[in-house]
């Protein structure tokens, strides 16, 4: 079969990869190309080399090795029964393209994934081979993220961890029932098992490097996963609960949420309508609440409505505060960090500044205003030297006062 020109294949295989939300290139070990033969460096914080009109960061060359696939997952554009145009790269082509882009400072590295061709093992071998060429033949020291295929031989998956900075295995759907229905060829137990093995391999490698300086690195940026939101009936509470159990069990660095978006040649089993993008945003906010603000999954669940869905019109932190008004107002001059972090409108940075500044002066509302973006949101929940919300905190129409209904705004987000 004659191959299409590389530009055409790049377009097809990048287009097919765009449903993966992650493009992060941060959190790996620090290294650079001095003393080597090739190029590349990682300095902790990843760099977004461009932003696409969908607002997402382009940090890595994110492509599929091929979009041929023997699986038939309903939500996936590349499923067997889909009529999309197919293409494939060789591992050498992927490596060369990565180097060409990297030399021009377009990217931080490579995010390689693939449809399943021939077998899971064969496909995984191809992914690992591209990473091997980059690392061993080009002495490439930039970032590599490999998507691993849970059905593949654990030995091959293990080799992926030796070349890659980050590995990821997608749980795909928040519930096992959803997975059974929409991804008939996948198996929740198998995915969980592969994540578990990966998690313990990572822990072991970290431990080994502490004891032996030359122990090999293994996925120094850890593992992540992705869930598709809105393709099945899972509620936000289901998703948050699943997420917190994944963080707990497999030492995940990140969970990405991808709002199911209508894909060409969609399967008839799927909803044609996409969930509001704002839902994905609210889930990320709840993820942040659990990781940086000290909320438990149960508390995030409390912010959700009776149907288990987080409100779309206000953020989950405000929703929680409105439900638990007895915890407020909080005195900005005396309250603990934990309590200040619960005040809607105060982020981790503002709280840090408040804790530092209040050693020097009794903070007034004006001072707080300089550290936050939205005083309206903060006011009802705070006591300052010259401010006491008195009855404001308990007003029944508080939500409307802080976040007036804005149909337009939601529409803008969805546009």
């Amino acid at each position, binding site marked *: 079969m004659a191959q299409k020109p*590389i530009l055409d294949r790049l377009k097809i295989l990048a287009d097919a990869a765009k449903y993966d939300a992650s493009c992060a290139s941060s959190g790996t070990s620090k290294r650079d190309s001095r003393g080597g033969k090739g*190029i590349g460096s990682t300095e902790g914080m990843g760099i977004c080399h461009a932003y696409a009109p969908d607002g997402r960061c382009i940090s890595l060359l994110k*492509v599929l090795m091929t979009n041929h696939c023997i699986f038939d997952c309903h939500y996936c554009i590349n499923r067997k029964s889909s009529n999309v145009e197919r293409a494939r790269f060789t591992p050498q082509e992927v490596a060369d*393209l990565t180097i060409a*882009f990297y*030399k021009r400072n377009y990217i931080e590295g490579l995010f390689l994934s693939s449809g399943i061709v021939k077998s899971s093992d064969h496909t995984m071998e191809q992914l690992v081979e591209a990473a091997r060429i980059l690392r061993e033949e080009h002495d490439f020291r930039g970032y590599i993220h490999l998507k691993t295929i849970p059905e593949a031989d654990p030995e091959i998956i293990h080799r992926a961890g030796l070349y890659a900075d980050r590995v990821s295995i997608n749980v795909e759907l928040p519930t096992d029932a959803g997975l059974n229905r929409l991804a008939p060829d996948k198996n929740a137990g198998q995915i969980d098992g592969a994540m578990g093995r990966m998690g313990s391999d990572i822990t072991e490698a970290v431990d080994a490097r502490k004891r032996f300086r030359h122990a090999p690195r293994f996925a120094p940026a850890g593992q992540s996963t992705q869930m598709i939101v809105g393709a099945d009936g899972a509620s936000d509470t289901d998703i948050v609960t699943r997420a917190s159990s994944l963080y707990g069990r497999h030492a995940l660095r990140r969970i990405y949420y991808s709002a199911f978006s*209508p894909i060409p040649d969609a399967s008839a089993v799927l909803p044609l309508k996409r969930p509001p*993008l704002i839902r994905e945003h609210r889930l990320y906010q709840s993820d942040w609440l659990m990781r940086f603000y000290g909320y438990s999954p149960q508390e995030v669940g409390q912010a959700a409505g009776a149907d288990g869905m987080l409100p779309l019109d206000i953020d989950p932190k405000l929703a929680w505060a409105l439900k638990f008004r007895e915890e407020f107002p909080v005195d900005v001059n005396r309250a603990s960090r934990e309590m200040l972090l619960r005040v809607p409108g105060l982020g981790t940075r503002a709280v840090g500044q408040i804790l*530092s500044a209040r050693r020097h002066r009794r903070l007034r509302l004006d001072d707080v205003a300089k550290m936050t973006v939205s005083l309206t949101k903060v006011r009802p929940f705070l006591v300052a030297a010259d401010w006491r919300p008195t009855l404001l905190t308990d007003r029944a129409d508080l939500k409307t006062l802080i976040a007036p209904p804005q149909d337009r705004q939601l529409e803008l987000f969805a546009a």
Partner: protein
Amino acid sequence: MSAPAQDRLAHVKLGTYYVVPLAESDDFEGWRDQARRLLMADAPPDRVAWTEPGGSAGDLFTHGDRRLPTPPDDAPQPRVSRRFMDIAKTVILHSDPERFFILYRTLWRLQTRPRLIEDAADGDIRKLADMARAVRRDIHKMRAFLRFRETKDEDGTEHYIAWFEPFHHILRHNAGFFVRRFANMRWSILTPRGALHWDGEVLREGPSATRADAPTGDDAEELWRGYYASIFNPARLKIGAMMKEMPRKYWKNMPEAQMIPELVAGAQAREATMVKAGEIDMGERPETLVAIEKAIHACARCPIGELDNTAVMGEGPRGAPLMIVGEQPGDQEDRQGRPFVGPAGQLLDVHLEKAGIDRATAYVTNTVKHFKFTAKTTQRGKRRIHQSPKAKEIDICRWWVESERAIVRPKLVLALGASAARGMLGKTVSITKARGVAHPLDDGSELWVTAHPSYLLRLDGAAREEQQRLFDADLAAVAKRLSELTDA
């Protein structure tokens, strides 16, 4: 006012301005050394004018005293926290000519209030924090948005050259990053504020450059633009988020950015195509059985409709409590234009009668409306061999059987075989597992699943008997359930 007091005031009023020129705009060491000396000589901030090369401030202070005061021998060494120095190192790189002044004023104030630096509500501290943030952002954006273009040097070596326009004095600061990242590559960065050249071993500085000194293109840019346009998901346009992180001011030196206007303009059309491709356009849902019959004859939304065959409409009374759904018309059905009239239909009739179900009171139809076959020439002449419809074809044809169901509104639907079950449920189920129980449907009616009678026809001996027994049991259960539903 007494004479000595007047003298003192005159001194303050006419007192010396110290003009302090800095060697470079990013000369932190120079600023630090001079600031220390001024502090020790007790020179108040508003008496010091700082100047930098290329700055306009210098002209205003031509009368100022360029000789700095000599600090008294017993002047105490100024003390300042590490934290302030870190901020100052960054703020020095800012392009605001006021930065030296604000830094010195803060340093001055810190001598009496050492912990002022922690007070995020103070005006100077905030201003410095804002400037430091702007500088850090510019440093970061240069690392992100600078683009190299490949050229060949005379010795045949690849030489990568970039043109970049930073907003602050960050070029020298950023040199280390590019050296570490591209250690084994020959590269140059040209800017209006100076240039950097790396040959793989030594970093050299060069004079300020213009855009014309840099190459105008690179073959890889077409690939990169192709990538940029493809990785973007037109279903989720968020221009605000993009502009916040990649402001328009950077666009002119980024090869991919020139595509943004057309990508944005084309996004809605692209999304519409994406949705359209998935959503085969079935038009308005027909409201009468006659309308459905008319529409299915014209339907060619899947390849089956394009074969040499005729659509077969369901038959039976509107409002029938029972709807029986098969897979697709067979050879006989296709010829006669009626459902279940071939061998399988005849077998079905026998078993329905056994279960006490009167076919005439039921609405009988198929999931797929056209006969799918392959033509085969055998000894007995040309024959049309039945082919099972694919999942995709069933999913498309669901529209019609669902439309029929919406009009007939049966209390119970009996699906014969896996294709019919998929047509009703939207997913493939195993008959063995799904038979014998009611599956609730969204309108409150229920679905029962059993084998297709043509399956029985293909069996013989004990297997056939066993399957017939199961089939009869299913029909009996349906009959019982149906009487419960119609009595209620």
